[in-house]
């Protein structure tokens, strides 16, 4: 973190000059309004008309996700969602694919920890056909045994294949170890052990227990006439029989105490991939905007403190970032990067030094102003498309958030002061209690990394699963 003084002065001059210009003409971004309807059967429908592009985007959210998987059957919510289109009362899997592709439509489904989702898009001219396909998969899946077998076999190989690229599995190992294989530590996609325990019967039961109008939010955005669409929705999805659903209880887990480290051995790795962090914050945390501002400075953009140190100034890595993944209950915070085998300790030390510096010195007024400008300037494209808008309003509805997340964003960003930043750093950027996960060549790095934590764990990447629950 050494910049020549003259560079700093030059920089300050530029910033001042341009910030004035930016401030003078900044436009406030607003969410386009949407309509909320609750159908008689309890289905929550959100409609947001957005004209200009003849596409209609669907985002359905079923309020039961991977956290609802029975222990030992991780991946069940994902399998259920993925199989919706693989055979219905009206169509075989092949017929569904043929009808969907014929109109150039898309239909993708899956599950994350908190909920299951379906994303679909159709051209406006095909909205009727698209809605009929969407309703067919959501309301009338039959889960043919043959399709269940195919899907499970493919998913099992997909988990193994992902382990060929540490990038794809670092988060899975990190979450598993961080949460001790429980709660958010259970893999949403399942693993080599749990996928073998999932049966046709358990999928049918998961669907019956969780897919119900009262447990579903459907957001639709794009080019359509809301009054007409509302009528069509009542005719189709309105016919979905209401039934009670037991809400999924996700136990809150606090931050891990002390320090522990998991080294996953991948003998052929030429670089080490690592994550460092702890359990942190939930969606709706009152500190969320402040956390976003501070994390932008710490590890959320190219000129972040972490990337300046580990990439720009030292060339230790192609990139490093830090992120918070807030969920219904506190989700993970982590520093994520990779470096060649023999610079593993150097890179880890440097990441920890940057974290220490953040906690010790805090941030400067200049960094704060820069991060505020950056977040505001980069925000509008994140709600540019009907797809992004549909996903956003569905997710906000689920988490009990509203349009003020967008409409008040600039005001909330402006309200973050150096003092609030200081409090947020002390509260949300842990240093004493840390969990480390490394994927790399153990023979090259194991002895050197024992210094980071009192408790050491190790496993082979070829060993089934990520980290066992107990």
């Amino acid at each position, binding site marked *: 973190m050494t910049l020549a003084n003259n560079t700093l002065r030059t*920089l300050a001059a530029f910033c001042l000059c*341009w910030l004035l210009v930016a401030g003078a003409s900044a436009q406030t971004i607003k969410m386009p309004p949407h309509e909320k309807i609750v159908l008689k059967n309890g289905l929550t429908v959100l409609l947001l008309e957005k004209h200009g592009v003849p596409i209609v985007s669907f985002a359905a959210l079923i309020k039961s996700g991977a956290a609802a998987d029975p222990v030992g059957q991780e991946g069940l919510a994902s399998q259920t969602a993925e199989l919706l289109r693989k055979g219905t009362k009206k169509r075989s899997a092949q017929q569904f694919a043929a009808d969907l592709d014929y109109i150039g439509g*898309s239909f993708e489904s899956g599950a994350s920890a908190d909920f299951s989702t379906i994303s679909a898009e159709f*051209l406006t001219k095909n909205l009727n056909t698209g809605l009929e396909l969407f309703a067919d998969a959501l309301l009338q899946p039959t889960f043919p045994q043959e399709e269940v077998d195919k899907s499970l076999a493919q998913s099992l190989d997909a988990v193994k294949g992902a382990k060929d690229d540490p990038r794809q599995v670092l988060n899975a190992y990190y979450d598993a170890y961080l949460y001790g294989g429980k709660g958010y530590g259970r893999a949403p996609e399942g693993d080599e052990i749990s996928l073998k325990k999932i049966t046709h019967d358990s999928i049918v039961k998961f669907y019956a227990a969780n897919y119900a109008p009262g447990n579903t939010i459907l957001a639709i955005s794009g080019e359509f006439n809301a009054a007409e669409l509302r009528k069509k929705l009542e005719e189709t999805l309105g016919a979905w029989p209401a039934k009670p659903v037991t809400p999924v209880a996700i136990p809150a887990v606090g931050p891990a105490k002390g320090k522990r480290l998991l080294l996953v051995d991948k003998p052929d790795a030429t670089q080490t991939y690592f994550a460092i962090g702890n359990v942190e914050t939930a969606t709706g945390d009152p500190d969320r905007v402040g956390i976003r501002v501070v994390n932008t400075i710490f590890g959320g953009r190219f000129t972040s403190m972490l990337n300046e140190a580990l990439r720009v100034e030292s060339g230790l890595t192609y990139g490093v970032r830090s992120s918070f993944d807030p969920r219904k209950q506190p989700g993970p915070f982590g520093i994520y990067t990779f470096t060649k085998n023999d610079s593993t300790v150097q890179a880890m030390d440097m990441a920890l030094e940057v974290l220490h510096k953040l906690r010790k010195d805090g941030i400067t007024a200049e960094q704060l102003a820069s991060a505020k400008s950056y977040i505001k300037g980069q925000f509008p494209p994140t709600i540019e498309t009907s797809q992004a808008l549909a996903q956003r309003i569905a997710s906000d509805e689920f988490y009990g958030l509203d349009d003020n997340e967008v409409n008040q964003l600039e005001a909330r960003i402006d309200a973050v002061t150096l003092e609030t930043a200081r409090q947020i750093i002390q509260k949300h950027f842990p240093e004493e209690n840390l969990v480390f996960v490394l994927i790399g060549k153990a023979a090259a790095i194991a002895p050197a990394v024992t210094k980071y934590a009192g408790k050491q764990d190790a496993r082979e990447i070829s060993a089934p699963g990520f980290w066992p629950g107990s």
Partner: protein
Amino acid sequence: MKKVFRGSLPGMVLGILLASGVTLRAQEPQFPVATKTLKNGMKVLVQPDHSIPNVALYIFYRVGSRNERPGTTGLSHFFEHMMFNGAKKYGPGDLDKVMEANGASNNAYTSRDVTVYQDWFPRSTMPLIFDIEADRIENLSFDPAKIKSEREVVASERRLSVDNDNGGILDEQLWATAFIAHTYQWPVLGWTSDIEHWTMEDLKHHFAMGYSPSNATMVVVGDVSPEEVFKLCEQDIEPIASHAPPPPVTTVEPEQLGERRLVVHKPSELPLLLIGYHVPQTNSPDFYALNILRTVLFQGESSRMYQRLVDKDQIALDVSSESDPGFDPTLVIVIAQPKQNVDPQTCEKDIYEELERAKSAPISDQELEKAKNIRWMEFYQQMRTINGRANTIGTYEVFFGDYNKLFDAAKNYGAVTKEDVQRVAKEYFGANNRTVATLLPENEGQEKQ
């Protein structure tokens, strides 16, 4: 009728036709693109869209790894990194800091054919962006300390996307085998020994060769007026002198006379299969028929290859195809991810049988219609953001020689017949024209053979 035109796209013209239920074949989407060629030869294209208060600015330089030579492979890509590491007015580290402090972000990509710089920013930051772009086009500096650390960054990028990535390593081997004469044969990232050895002189030579304003095209899409963009261009970009463009790449890849095969042995859970077929350059008339063929074969779960390999025979997790735009004859690459313990040759057999089927009989009317509908949806998905539109307008302008070709795409796809599709299947997807690359897992305790 539509509401007031907010620049949000072909929707204005096409939406009306769509709403009336007409199947789209040959309508031509239009939206206003203003163009200007600066006195130094740089062409500028502007497409105003006021739906969000932001701007996407792309600069395409017609220089990539095809303009390199053995010994300095990867230089274009390395140079792309150096374009962020300091010029005269904005020294090392300043460019990113100043941009981000003003709400802007940036990135860049390098291919075999082009190097493309991307800026995304709130409209009020535009004068700053022009100041920065002009500075680095005209006065890039070469700080030895930055060169040293950036070499390490690129080495890390290579470890990430080649050494520790089965797809990356196999793709590199495939191109190196499919091309024996043309400069497409080496990887965009460069060979490791070249990354370690190029010199300051090599970098300066590359800048002088590839970065003449006349060798670049700028595309600006978003909350701007053409007038204000052109004014900034005249002020900041036009005074920069042009010089000679890169020497033409004259080597023509000779016709492939027989199948080529290669194997990579690597510790791995799953095998991998890539098959490359030589096809003409992007601006060839066969571009549209080839894309329709690829859509019928590979796109969606109803596609022939998915139905055969993934759904029916259940020997693959996924099968797809890709083909990057190219100035010169390039490759269509078939990618199959076999399931664990499946011999990739089993996948090959299925793929060849499906290709034979496409050669021996025309696709159905329904498949042709489906492929056009899928292409149509993709078109809207690409064009619905200011970023996607800037990239697409620039890609058409650079690779087809005229952005207006974008508006002809619907017409050109509409004109493709079943017979055209059958003809390109026969012409390009023969055994003699293919290179087969296989990655075979070689795990502890297993024999090499």
